[in-house]
């Protein structure tokens, strides 16, 4: 009975607390609603790419009149592909088709003799993500089916003793991806996706959430330690107070930033080595065009990370100003932090932020993390315009959030830490005036 009494009291107390209500009941609904919108957008983007049947061109390099004709025609008919013989302009062809399958006379000869054939496929992707990379496998699967069919109908009769390994796996396919004018291997594409989609999302999530919690609770701690009122009556501008606090917390998180940048550099370096391992030449992270992790890129990533974190701290600080207590500040900063991370979750699901347009783009711009992604992505692919966009976005975010926090810092709501109270007071004031 006593337990029930305590339980009922606890429930009644908690359910009346707006932060708990918002965080535990409204928050999850909101988060999942937004998350589903973002992931749907990402999936839709990929679906659009694979909705139409892929337009495929088969290019026969070094044609040999003795053996290429029949095999190429057979595969082309199964793939519903156009056939090109001899030298072609690859750039023109990839603009027209979704994939190009290169067949050499050696490959065809191997195929007809029951030996493993080496085929090169160039697949065009509009976005670079786990999802789009995996869709390229569809083209490969169709190609393999066609070759299996050809083997079943022709090769098995001529070479009944063909090895089981050849019959089950007759092709060695080298897949190359064509993305925004650049050609890269599948491994390189995967390493780039891992470098941005995975590393940026997960590492930033951890760092941002931890930093925001520190910033948000900083105000709550002042309020609960009863030091806030004295602080607010000291001769200092609201803006300086906000910036001072944010910079103080930034100093604490500086170690985190350094560790983040160092870790990310090591991570990108290691996956770039993985991608360029066969040649052992220049360390490249991605594209065959020679995009490298230069010291300049590391500086851009470091600067944008620091900026993004300061913005996150300013927002976390704002959450602290508006929250009633430390618990409310923690809850608010967790949800705001998660909401801010949504664009990066989008990247994780395959959304190409730089390619998004319309209202979703406006929504994405609400999060400073979109601009962190821009800078990191721009640094990796070597696009100065994307880097500039990212850095400018972060600076604008910083100005906006510091201004809002400064204004609120000098308002009386900061003492009680409740935006709801302010609204009620405004209504009460109006009633009084009437």
């Amino acid at each position, binding site marked *: 009975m006593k337990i029930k009494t305590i339980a009922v009291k606890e429930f009644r107390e908690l359910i009346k607390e707006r932060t708990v209500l918002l965080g535990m009941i409204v928050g999850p609904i909101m988060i999942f609603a937004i998350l589903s919108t973002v992931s749907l957008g990402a999936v839709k983007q990929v679906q659009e790419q694979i909705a139409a049947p892929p337009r495929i061109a088969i290019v026969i390099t070094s044609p040999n009149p003795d053996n290429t004709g029949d095999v190429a025609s057979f595969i082309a008919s199964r793939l519903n592909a156009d056939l090109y013989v001899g030298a072609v302009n690859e750039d023109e062809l990839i603009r027209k088709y979704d994939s190009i399958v290169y067949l050499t006379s050696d490959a065809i000869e191997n195929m007809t003799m029951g030996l493993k054939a080496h085929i090169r496929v160039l697949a065009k992707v509009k976005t670079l993500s786990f999802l789009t990379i995996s869709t390229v496998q569809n083209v490969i699967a169709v190609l393999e089916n066609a070759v299996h069919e050809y083997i079943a109908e022709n090769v098995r009769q001529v070479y009944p003793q063909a090895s089981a390994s050849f019959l089950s796996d007759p092709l060695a396919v080298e897949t190359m991806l064509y993305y925004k004018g650049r050609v890269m291997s599948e491994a390189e594409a995967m390493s780039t996706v891992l470098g941005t989609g995975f590393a940026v999302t997960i590492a930033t999530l951890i760092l941002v959430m931890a930093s925001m919690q520190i910033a948000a609770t900083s105000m709550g701690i002042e309020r609960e330690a009863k030091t806030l009122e004295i602080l607010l009556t000291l001769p200092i501008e609201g803006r300086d107070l906000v910036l001072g606090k944010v910079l103080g917390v930034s100093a604490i998180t500086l170690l985190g930033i350094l560790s983040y940048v160092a870790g990310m550099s090591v991570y990108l370096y290691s996956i770039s080595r993985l991608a360029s391992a066969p040649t052992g030449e220049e360390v490249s992270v991605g594209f065959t065009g020679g995009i490298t992790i230069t010291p300049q890129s590391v500086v851009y990533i470091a600067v944008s990370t620091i900026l993004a974190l300061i913005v996150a701290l300013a927002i976390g600080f704002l959450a602290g100003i508006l929250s009633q207590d430390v618990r409310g500040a923690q809850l608010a900063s967790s949800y705001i932090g998660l909401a801010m991370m949504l664009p990066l979750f989008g990247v994780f699901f395959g959304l190409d932020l730089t390619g998004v347009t319309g209202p979703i783009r406006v929504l994405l711009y609400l999060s400073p993390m979109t601009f962190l992604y821009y800078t990191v992505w721009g640094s990796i692919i070597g696009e100065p315009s994307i880097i500039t966009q990212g850095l400018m976005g972060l600076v604008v975010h910083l100005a906006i959030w510091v201004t809002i926090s400064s204004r609120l810092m000098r308002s009386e709501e900061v003492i009680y830490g409740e935006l709801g109270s302010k609204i009620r007071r405004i209504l009460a004031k109006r009633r*009084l005036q009437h």
Partner: protein
Amino acid sequence: MLALMGDEEVIVDGLVKVFDGVEAVSGVSFRVSRGEIFGLIGPNGAGKTTTLRMIVGLLKPNRGSVRVFGLDPWRDGVRFRRIISYLPEDAGVYKHMSGRYFLRFNASLYSDDPRVVDEMVEYGAILSGLGKDLDRPMGKYSKGMKRRILLARTFMVKPRLAVLDEPTSGLDVNYSVAVRRMIKEYVEENNATVILSSHNMLEVEYLCDRVAFINRGVIVAEGTPEELKRRYKADNLEEAFIEAIGGVY
């Protein structure tokens, strides 16, 4: 020390504060002169703290105004806060910070001149009377020690107006006497002005030049302790207050 006409440093005029549709303060007005210690006396929930918070610019009145040396708490911001110092009733301390660093931190916000800062810290150290304990983390201070360091902080910056909310609240007799003495000496030495709130009538009678009784957000009587006792034919301020509000409720 009685107020002279036209010498008012603090002019509080018709302050109204509404919380959630309830008037916590309903048209409070009073004037305080330079060198005066003015006491705001009333029971819990009478509106003392709300009034003091409006005076120092922590709360914005729904109606009415505050002028301290002609400065408005909300319009004149930093200029205003430079001449006042506020001690909240239940003010806390930074538990990891030493008392001396706390004094220096505060002083640094009042002056950019290192010499002035040093002087303030030195003065604050003397006022606090904490000696070697100043270098210990404040989290280890007793309640009385915390109150002393907070009072020292309040006065070390030599404010023209010090606003003290229940300055001896929760302190034992020894500390209370020391704190009262500190307030009195500071005002006499610096010709500063103090507004304080209290429900300790003995304290108010000892400290204040003039007193206002506040009840349910309204000032019901104002005058020197002697005047009020005479007016309500009472032996002490406590009885005068009860008379002023029409008996115990």
